[in-house]
């Protein structure tokens, strides 16, 4: 019973939503069901916040290595939560928008969240450069092709590409680095992406059918 009820719900809802696409009066059924997604998403926010606290408070309790970072995380979490929930510093009253200009929430977003998150992502550039120096080798034919394509894209997507190959006459403009970059994006990349998309599409259909028909049951927490 514990397994059959979820299987029946999945089969019923899945079949109903597929059938609804072909029956005009039922066309909007899918959109009504999407509201369920919003409701579930709300619980996901709670779960996410709860999990974050559980992990970091445990770390603090045990004084695990680098527990100081957990202090920053927990304080930051509660500070942002309080700023948003209680509308601290909001120009309007409690019913005003949380992102109103001048509010503590928006000020912290502009001056803390925005630069910090951008910085974190920007650090990637340093690691990519270091990895390129140490690991990106033309060890075989495939790696060499990848390396050449990477050079063309790296140069072609910046003005350097044009600067380096502007001397090539117009009749041979296809050999200019920016045009080579465009060709790579429009031909090999496009072919690969289409193949991936078709593969994903077929995979989604196949997996959906398996789930609806109850063949695939791993989502129930059972991999048998």
């Amino acid at each position: 019973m514990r397994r059959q009820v979820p299987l029946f719900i999945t089969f019923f809802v899945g079949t109903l939503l597929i059938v609804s696409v072909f029956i005009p009066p039922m066309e909007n059924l899918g959109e009504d069901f999407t509201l369920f997604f919003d409701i579930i998403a709300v619980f996901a926010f709670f779960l996410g916040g709860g999990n974050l606290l559980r992990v970091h408070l445990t770390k603090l309790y045990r004084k695990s290595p680098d527990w100081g970072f957990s202090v920053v995380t927990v304080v930051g979490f509660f500070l942002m939560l309080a700023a948003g929930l209680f509308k601290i510093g909001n120009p309007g009253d409690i019913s005003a928008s949380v992102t109103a200009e001048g509010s503590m929430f928006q000020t912290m977003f502009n001056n803390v969240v925005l630069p910090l998150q951008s910085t974190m992502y920007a650090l990637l550039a340093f690691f990519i450069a270091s990895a390129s120096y140490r690991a990106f080798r033309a060890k075989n034919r495939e790696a060499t092709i990848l390396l050449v394509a990477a050079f063309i894209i790296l140069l072609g997507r910046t003005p350097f590409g044009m600067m380096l190959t502007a001397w090539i006459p117009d009749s041979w403009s296809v050999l200019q680095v920016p045009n080579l970059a465009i060709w790579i994006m429009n031909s090999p990349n496009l072919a690969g992406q289409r193949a991936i998309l078709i593969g994903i599409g077929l995979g989604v259909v196949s997996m959906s059918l398996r789930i609806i028909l109850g063949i695939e049951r791993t989502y129930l927490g059972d991999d048998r």
Partner: protein
Amino acid sequence: MASTIATILLILVGVSLLYIAYRTITGRPVERRIVFIYIALAVALPLFMTLPAPVQVTPDVERLYDALEELRPGSKVLVSFDYDPPSAPELQPMAVAFMKYAFKHDLRVIVMGLWPQGPQLANLAIEEAMADQEIAAKNLEYGVDYVNLGFQSGNEFVIQAMGTQFKRMFPQDDRRIPYDSIPLMANVTNFSNVDFVFNLSSGKPGTIEWVQIAVDRFGATMGAGNTAVQAPQVYPYLRAKQLHGLLGGMSGAAEFEKIVEEPGDGTTFILSQMFAHAIVILFVIIGNAAFFTERRKQE
């Protein structure tokens, strides 16, 4: 003065790279912190330089521009901000240039976001566009000339529901104003009442979901701006003409700024990216030179 110092430093960087090449080839590679310094210099120095960047506008950017040029004053444009601060350096310049173009051409802008921080980034882009003297002189009014509907959770299901009724997903805007009280939304029920959709995206939900639902199912006309990482995934939709133009990464931002004649951060940052790319390529070449030298020795 700053420009001269930056140029001298750049020459020094070039000379020191030759020394690093020599060290690496002779089996004494430099540690990674040295590589970090080079990347930091490559990114930071161009910000103080006044080098002209010969930005070449690619056909994908031209297509977006052509699609925008077809819009008449008063046309309604829906702009979805589906990204967060980590992608802002690439996408925010596109957003600002787009807003400037839209406001200067009297387009009515409806902003929304499928990512929680998107609408806040939209406010920053609008604020920056409003600082432009020509736009400021227009005295644009919130709710009449532009509106921010805010964030709605639900990913692609939000787009699907908007196909029937925007109001279902956005009963009130970002400022808590009821949908029915917003003059700009008076005659907007669904995508059929919007003349153009522009999506700024750095992942899922993003451009692909917008194309699959808003364009394919509800017939919206759409263009997009993506991060350089995501742009290649969107090419199948671009070539199939489901997308009317694409801005890809920082170069897309710089190209768009050039074609709409609104030079901004994209034009500035492309120089940093250009030098950073050059440094990466040089380090790859140095690393490979050492690799082949070593392999030859072993043979």
